[in-house]
């Protein structure tokens, strides 16, 4: 992993909020989130269903439904992608940031062969590329991903689940994107296939220096592969930091609960899982202040009144909690 001094900033998310307009009123899916992504790192973005992790991941490609209202900034190499025009954003997607989804069967075109997918992806962005050149690039890439060359002529249904997901990765890589957003990309796979795909992610990072944002509900997966972990709850980023540190010493009460409820196969560990009370809030009417306060075992009066700031507790380790007030924020009364 790069040391602090060499870190090259790739993405800066600044005070980003996203609200969906729904029948039941505005739904605050992402609430004032700020974080950075550096080149060549693997960051795990975790949280339970509905916490806004997928919404945030898609926002990095500016993929949001028309009825969504976004505020704040998402800077890619210093430029705010929220202000890009349609042509610019189309070129940005795929070439700068690409996305891999959970279900490759619905993401791949069932009547297109593997090579057609790859050639199309190249030619859409680089229309003057001859088919032979595009095919050559496709060959090199899938060889690198451990798919046999003859598979280029296969249709998606002829491939196994793991192989389909590797084709999706190839599609994400074929334009040399700097950032891959993998949204539950390994969730539908069996453990052994999943483990192999994770190895592949790590190799790709080491070899090409790409950045990977791994969005998952499986926290153990993040421990296995990521450099940093970001935890979301009810649309807010509650903790972000190096994996070794967050797993060794989680600071936010939600992170603590989450980590304690992860099952493991090792026999020496606790035989009881931690049981977190309550359920995530309805985001059309989120709780005031810290959104976790109704479920928080350590809630204080201030938690219900004001939202805490994401503030450092250690180098690179930020927590969104009144238990760790930052020096510049007002101390709770």
């Amino acid at each position, binding site marked *: 992993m790069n040391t602090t001094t060499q870190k090259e900033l790739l993405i800066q998310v600044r005070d980003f909020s996203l609200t969906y307009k729904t029948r039941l009123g505005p739904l605050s899916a992402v609430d004032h989130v700020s974080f950075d992504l550096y080149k060549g790192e693997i960051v795990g973005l975790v949280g*339970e269903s509905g916490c806004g992790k997928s919404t945030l991941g898609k926002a990095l490609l500016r993929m949001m439904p028309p009825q969504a209202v976004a505020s704040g900034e998402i800077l890619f190499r210093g430029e705010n992608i929220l202000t890009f025009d349609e042509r610019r954003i189309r070129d940005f997607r795929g070439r700068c940031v690409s996305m891999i989804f959970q279900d490759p069967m619905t993401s791949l075109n069932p009547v297109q062969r593997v090579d057609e997918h790859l050639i199309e992806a190249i030619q859409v962005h680089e229309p003057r590329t001859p088919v032979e050149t595009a095919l050559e690039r496709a060959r090199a890439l899938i060889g690198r991903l451990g798919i046999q060359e003859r598979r280029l002529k296969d249709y998606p249904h002829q491939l196994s689940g793991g192989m389909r997901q590797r084709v999706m990765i190839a599609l994400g890589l074929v334009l040399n994107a700097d950032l891959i957003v993998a949204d539950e990309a390994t969730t539908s796979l069996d453990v052994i296939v999943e483990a192999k795909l994770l190895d592949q992610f790590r190799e790709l990072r080491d070899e090409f220096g790409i950045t990977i944002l791994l969005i998952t509900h499986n926290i153990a997966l993040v421990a296995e592969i990521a450099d940093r972990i970001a935890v979301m709850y009810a649309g807010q980023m509650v903790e972000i930091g190096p994996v070794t540190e967050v797993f060794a010493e989680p600071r936010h009460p939600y992170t603590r609960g989450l980590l304690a409820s992860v*099952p493991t196969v090792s026999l020496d560990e606790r035989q009881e899982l931690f049981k977190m009370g309550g359920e995530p809030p309805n985001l059309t009417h989120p709780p005031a202040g810290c959104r976790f306060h109704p479920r928080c075992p350590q809630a204080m009066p201030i938690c219900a009144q004001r939202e805490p700031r994401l503030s450092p507790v250690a180098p690179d380790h930020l927590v969104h909690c009144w238990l760790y007030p930052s020096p510049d924020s007002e101390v709770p009364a």
Partner: protein
Amino acid sequence: MNTAAHPEEWLVEVEGLKKWFPVQQGLLNRLLAAGKQEYVHAVDGVSFKIRRGEVFGLAGESGSGKSTTGRLVVRMETPTEGTVRFAGQDITTLQGDALRRLRSRMQIIYQDPMASLNPRMTLGEAIGYGLKIHAPDLPAAERHQRVVDMLEKVGLAPAQYFYTKFPHQISGGQRQRAVIARALVTNPDLILADEPIAMADVSVRALLLDLMNQLKREFNLTYLFITHDLATAKYICDRLGIMYLGKLVEVGELRELYAHPLHPYTQALLAAVPVPDPRRRRKQAMPAGEIPNPIHPPSGCRFHPRCPWATERCAQEEPAMRELRPGHPVACHYAERSLEG
């Protein structure tokens, strides 16, 4: 219940169970390959027993036949070959009324509670429906009371509030609780739980596992727990069978199995489970390839094309189950290697 006939207290005894599904073929293929019907060997000779009151798990990857085995045990499917005994009675070919009567004693909990619950029935109606069928003589007031009691038992309180709720009005975790309540209301002996918590979030999973454990003690239940997740299995199963491509490759007490996995496939499965500790990342390589096609399963040991230990013998001779450690049989020619540590 007549337990005296079965002093050993085996609630379920499965012997040589097979289920082959015919492969649907197109017209052209049917004409060309006349009479050559192919089969998916979903379950291909599986034997095990489940003690009364224990949680027996079946684990394996998708396509290993674990769900089909579960469905055969509760007779949702009729076996192609082999026998299923339930509380000492051979139920392999049971039909009609006799089978329907048996159903109240074995209930199922599936993965997706939204798909298991009728969207147009309130929870109260859905849970009471099983009683209507299996205990038609029960007065309505008493049925209502039993549903209310059951709602409270699964933690859906106040029960009167949840009684009138529709599935879309409650959360996923609450829905799965309702499914559990519906399974338990007919007072069954055996619960087939097919990935019952796979869809729930981590924090909800712990609560559901806890509930299942607690209800098991309270109602003296036996679970057949089907899962792809060995980490989850640890918190509920007493014994576990590992399946691969229609075969049982290893069976043992949970702690014994996790501490001393004998089959190379079990070892790979355990090693593949991510550890929630960044300081202990997996180092060993994973077996090559993916689970093969069950229409033409590999010869000999079905794991041999992916096995790091495979030899010529493995491709020819199918390994039999051997009890290498007490109560811990394994189907591998070379499992002794695991004993050497």
